[in-house]
């Protein structure tokens, strides 16, 4: 039973993916184990045959316990240790799946370091290949340049089909998209999301924006999105228990309310940060948002202008999207998705009326907030946008 994370003391064997007696190669997934945090796939430490006794599914075993054996053909596990494995007792320091001593299996069992020549390492990195999955033909099993070349050719040939579908092109994700893929996967799989959708009437706000546009100057550039950022920041400042994150068993409250603004760029999605957006007058917030968006598109963002947001605002209204189910930007607990502002037919005082409206879809980390807590923030954001005077502090003075 491997130790995954510092706090882990025991784990549960969820299932064996390979039957006892089946051939496995180093790196093949042989079992799934569960810790208090996650399910993890367990890889074979060596080439050989999976041999019992295996720990039974749903059994709990302490870290260091033997779960099963990988043996060379004709070999069997040592009886004394085998019985210990079946009992799920820890053999201190033993690998999760033991390999019987002798030959390459033993040397490969505990070390994750692949024996490869420096030249092979360089080529593998260039081609995006995993050295651990390449068999070495050099002295003492060293992976050589020629081995990587062969593996690279095989990978190319195999890439014609992916899970049965024909593949037109295969390319490595750019670093930014790779990071984004990792983050969204983590957010989607590990954070319980709740999404609340609410319609916001924009009569007052649109009237104000009409005035600012007519007057010209910097105020003319204030967008609906700026107002949403400001409203959400103020609402979170008023509800600091949601300007927060979960870290293991702890709830953290952030010291600042920093707004992340999702910006689409040629390299992928970037989220530059308007720091302390709750305290920034709307016009300054807007100017800062414009500056950051421009820098994001030209690639000039400084490191401290990224990665410190405590909530995020994302806007696809320009595409006519009305509502969505956004994915949180970890470790944040709140993401406001802004839909298209449009005139809609609404019922007012028992009659149809036409009003400018926008729908906000706000995702919350359910571990941070229950539904009612979240709803209070959602409602407060709507209120601030429909009756925007609290958002306008400092605006006239600075105009």
């Amino acid at each position, binding site marked *: 039973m491997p130790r995954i994370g510092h706090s882990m003391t025991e784990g549960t064997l969820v299932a064996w993916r390979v039957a006892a007696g089946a051939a496995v190669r180093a790196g093949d997934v042989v079992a799934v184990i569960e810790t208090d945090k996650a399910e993890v796939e367990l890889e074979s430490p060596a080439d050989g045959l999976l041999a019992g006794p295996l720990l039974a599914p749903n059994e709990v075993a302490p870290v260091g316990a033997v779960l099963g054996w990988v043996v060379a053909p004709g070999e069997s596990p040592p009886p004394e240790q085998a019985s210990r494995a079946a009992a799920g007792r820890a053999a201190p320091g033993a690998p999760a799946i033991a390999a019987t001593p002798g030959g390459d299996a033993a040397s490969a069992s505990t070390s994750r370091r692949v024996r490869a*020549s*420096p*030249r*092979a390492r*360089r080529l593998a990195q260039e081609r995006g290949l995993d050295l651990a999955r390449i068999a070495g*033909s*050099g*002295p003492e099993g*060293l992976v*050589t*340049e*020629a081995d990587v070349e062969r593996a690279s050719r095989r990978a190319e040939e195999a890439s014609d089909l992916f899970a049965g579908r024909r593949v037109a092109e295969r390319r490595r994700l750019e670093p930014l998209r790779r990071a984004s893929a990792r983050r969204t996967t983590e957010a989607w799989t590990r954070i319980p999301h709740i999404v609340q959708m609410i319609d916001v009437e924009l009569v007052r706000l649109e009237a104000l924006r009409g005035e600012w546009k007519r007057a010209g100057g910097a105020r003319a550039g204030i967008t609906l999105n700026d107002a949403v950022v400001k409203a959400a920041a103020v609402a979170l400042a008023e509800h600091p228990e949601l300007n927060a994150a979960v870290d293991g068993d702890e709830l953290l409250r952030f010291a600042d309310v920093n707004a992340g603004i999702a910006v689409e760029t040629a390299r992928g999605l970037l989220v530059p940060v308007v720091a302390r957006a709750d305290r920034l007058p709307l016009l300054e917030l807007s100017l800062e948002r414009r500056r950051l968006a421009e820098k994001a598109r030209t690639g000039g963002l400084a490191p401290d202008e990224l990665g410190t947001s405590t909530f995020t605002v994302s806007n696809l209204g320009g595409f006519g999207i009305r509502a969505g189910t956004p994915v949180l930007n970890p470790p944040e607990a709140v993401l406001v998705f802004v839909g298209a502002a449009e005139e809609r037919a609404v019922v007012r005082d028992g009659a149809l009326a036409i009003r400018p409206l926008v729908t906000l879809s706000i995702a919350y980390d359910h571990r941070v907030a229950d539904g009612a807590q979240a709803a209070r923030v959602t409602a407060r954001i709507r209120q601030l946008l429909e009756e925007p005077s609290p958002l306008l502090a400092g605006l006239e003075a600075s105009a």
Partner: protein
Amino acid sequence: MSGTRSLSYGEAIREALAEEMRRDPGVILYGEDVAVYGGIFRVLAGLREEFGERVFDTPISENLIVGAAVGAAMAGLRPVAELQFADFVYCAADEIVLKCGTWRYAHDGAFRLPLVIRAASGGYGFGPEHSQCPEAFLMHQPGIRLAVPSTPDDAKGLLKTAIRSDDPVVFLEHKLLYGVKGEVPDGEHLTSFGRARVRRSGDALTIVAWQDMLRRVLAAAERLAADGIEVEVIDPVTLNPFDRETILGSVRRTGGCLVVEEAYRTLGVGAEIGALLMEQAFGDLDKPLRRLAIPDVPVPTAQHLVEALVPSVDDVVRAVRELVG
């Protein structure tokens, strides 16, 4: 002037000495059994007759033989001193390392030391104290040039260059090569120091060897070529100056290196080449460095015992096959 003649290694050495002594009256030649006997390996025949007192015998006093070369060189002569056996480098270690190597430096270049120490190395049948190949020891010392000719052509060209050099040169002549014949260019023929020769080209592996080990490596290369394995064989020609670039350039192509030397393994020339590759070609290596050398036991006397220790053609073939796979 464009022809060649077939000469033995020993004849080529004699010819180089005779030509340089004719050319420069400052060249003198001395050592034990040099004048009348013509050198213990009899390669100096006729030089006493032609050059008279410029060719003379000395007592069995290696400190004196080398030290006097330093003094005579300081005084403007170009002495060529013979130590008979390369093992005697250790008898005259003070004079070679500290006088040849540092006298000029300690006195901040006040003198030039144009001298050559000839010594016969390697081979078998002479026992532990007359069979040494002290290349690594000499290469370790600053201030001393070190030539290791492998062919009659280079024996002549390197010795002439050594005699004309203004620095002390230790010139190691391999005992088993004295009788080996090869083509030597007619006329004035000088071989540059510090330029390795690629004796055979290939992509499978770089092999560095010189003198008798070079002969064995080239024989092994023939056998390997029959199996389609083409190795590159580099003869360093001189070990100080040491042509690192040619070795590095070859290894950058082949990705591997084997050093074959007729000397003790620990801290041999192969160890130096290994360190060089780690420092300057690490990312280009596709195979571990291999050294074939004498295990760290003294060289015995009986030929079959020596052959059990010294790298053989078979050893080279086996090592290459292991590396190239």
